């Protein structure tokens, strides 16, 4: 439980994270560079002349050994340089950072929506699991899980943008340009991403709280004179949070990728739409960079979840 033990655990996890990122980058590089054959050919199309191909290959360093291509790419990535697009001939990095900002906003607010929905509803469903209201929440969550996020998005647009005209149906305003328009534009995408994940999370919260409600230490808490909800809040929720946090990590990863679909529905300039555009224009170097960023994002989330778990569960800190 000493500080040095915590630091050791932290160092171990950080090492695993770094190793995973490196292996993932090799996998992505090989997959996107070797399998498609010649990236210059892919970018220029089948009608490109041999001279143009050779010049492009040389220009982008594609005629050098794979290992030095890889090292160049990864070395650049660490300093924010994702290379120059084969298609637009513009640097990929700055655009990627811009787009990432949009996606992070979307995923962050989506997660908030999911949590704001799942924690109270899941707890209520567990406490009332013998009553009709508890069963109703569970049934509602079961239905919510089955709705694809993009359908939820389309229906929300239909109701709140087209019929009622309360909110914009899509588009993006940066927060520093017009905060009001930014927030209004974020509501529907965040809801369509968050509500469905919230339904999934509700079920996990319910199971976890139900599990905790049956624990002996909750009876001890009641015997001290805590009322049912007091006992649950002071002694139950922290313990119930542990399994939920693991799921939360997986969910964040799902949201990060689920954002691709929602960005398409709401025409948001996020990482997902950049990915789809790059695939459409066969800009494999850009695809490679975006995939790396998304995968590193998922790995980072897992890393943070591991740490959070250690902070919340004293048993894992060792004695």
């Amino acid at each position, binding site marked *: 439980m000493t500080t040095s033990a915590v630091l050791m655990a932290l160092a171990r996890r950080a090492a695993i994270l770094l190793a*995973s990122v490196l292996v*993932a980058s090799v996998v992505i590089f090989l997959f*996107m560079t070797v399998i498609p054959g010649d990236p210059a050919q892919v970018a220029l199309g089948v009608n490109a002349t041999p001279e143009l191909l050779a010049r492009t290959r040389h220009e982008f360093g594609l005629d050098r050994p794979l290992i030095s291509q890889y090292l160049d790419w990864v070395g650049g990535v660490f300093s924010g340089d994702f290379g120059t697009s084969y298609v637009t001939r513009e640097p990929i990095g700055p655009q990627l950072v811009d787009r990432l900002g949009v996606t992070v906003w979307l995923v962050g607010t989506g997660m908030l929506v999911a949590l704001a929905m799942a924690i109270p509803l899941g707890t209520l469903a567990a406490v009332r699991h013998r009553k009709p209201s508890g069963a109703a929440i569970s049934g509602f969550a079961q239905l919510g899980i089955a709705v*694809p996020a993009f359908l939820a998005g*389309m229906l929300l647009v239909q109701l709140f943008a087209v019929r009622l005209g309360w909110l914009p149906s899509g588009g993006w305003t940066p927060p520093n340009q017009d905060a009001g328009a930014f927030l209004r534009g974020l509501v529907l995408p965040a809801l369509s991403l968050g509500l469905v994940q919230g339904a999934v999370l509700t079920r996990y919260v319910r199971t976890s709280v139900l599990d905790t409600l049956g624990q002996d230490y909750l009876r001890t808490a009641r015997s001290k004179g805590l009322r049912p909800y007091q006992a649950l809040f002071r002694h139950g929720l922290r313990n119930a949070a542990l399994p939920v946090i693991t799921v939360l990590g997986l969910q964040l*990863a799902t949201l990060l990728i689920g954002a691709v679909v929602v960005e398409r529905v709401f025409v948001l300039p996020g990482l997902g739409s950049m990915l789809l555009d790059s695939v459409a224009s066969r800009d494999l170097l850009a695809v490679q960079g975006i995939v790396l960023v998304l995968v590193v994002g998922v790995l980072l989330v*897992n890393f943070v979840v591991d740490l959070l778990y250690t902070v919340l569960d004293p048993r894992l800190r060792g004695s």
Partner: protein
Amino acid sequence: MALAQRSRNASLLAGGTLVGLVVLAALVSFGWTPHDPLRVEATDRLLGPTGRYVFGTDRFGRDVASQLLVGARSTLYVGVVAVGLAALVGTPLGILAGMSRRWLGEFVMRANDLVLAFPALLLAIMFGAVFGAGTLTAMIAIGIATVPSFARIARSGTLQVMSTEYVLAARAAGRSPAFIARRHVLPNIAGLVIVQCSVSFAIAVLAEAALSFLGFGTRPPTPSWGRMLQESQELLAVEPRLALIPGIAIALAVLGFNLLGDGLRDRFDPRLEAYR
């Protein structure tokens, strides 16, 4: 206890019925559909539900009901191939990881964690970028992304079985690992794997829909529920029916596989008994 019993049977029954309906729709579509799902009828565009077209027609004048029936096939194809691939690869890997505690097991689980960093949708888009989008790439990508969940389930089940007395006895009697895996481990974790199949199927159906919506799934003109949704997006204000019908079909299929999984889990996992 009686109440719990009833609700478990209700999940199993409701889930089984919904899944049965999807399978039935797919089977029926091989022999009969009300109309040719691909036939474009310029004079019959955007018709509402009538006796002739039960669910109406889309903007090309194609029969929605026929597309829905044939679309069930795509949903099942992708699910069966993806989940089958994941189960056939993931389960043996999980058993291997559970039975060999040394570096091999550790290596399998680390590799597993790495695959987890590539969610199905992302993998499918990568595959689409490299190999070209289509049903096959979607199925394989979803399948690979689903391998870790099978490997995890199989590993934790295997670890439990390996610590039981009958396995210790079998090992003491000099039985080979292959024998133990076949005779003791596999039969005991089969229930867990079947439950995981049902749950993964639900996820695969959603993934297929999302991919078709993005244009990385089933290619036109083959009907698919996800693409029906995508094609209906612009017409949502005028004809919400075109989005709602495939949308409800997807939701019911996913609900069916989830309910089936819940019902099966309660049946196979006696540990949950205590909480009910």
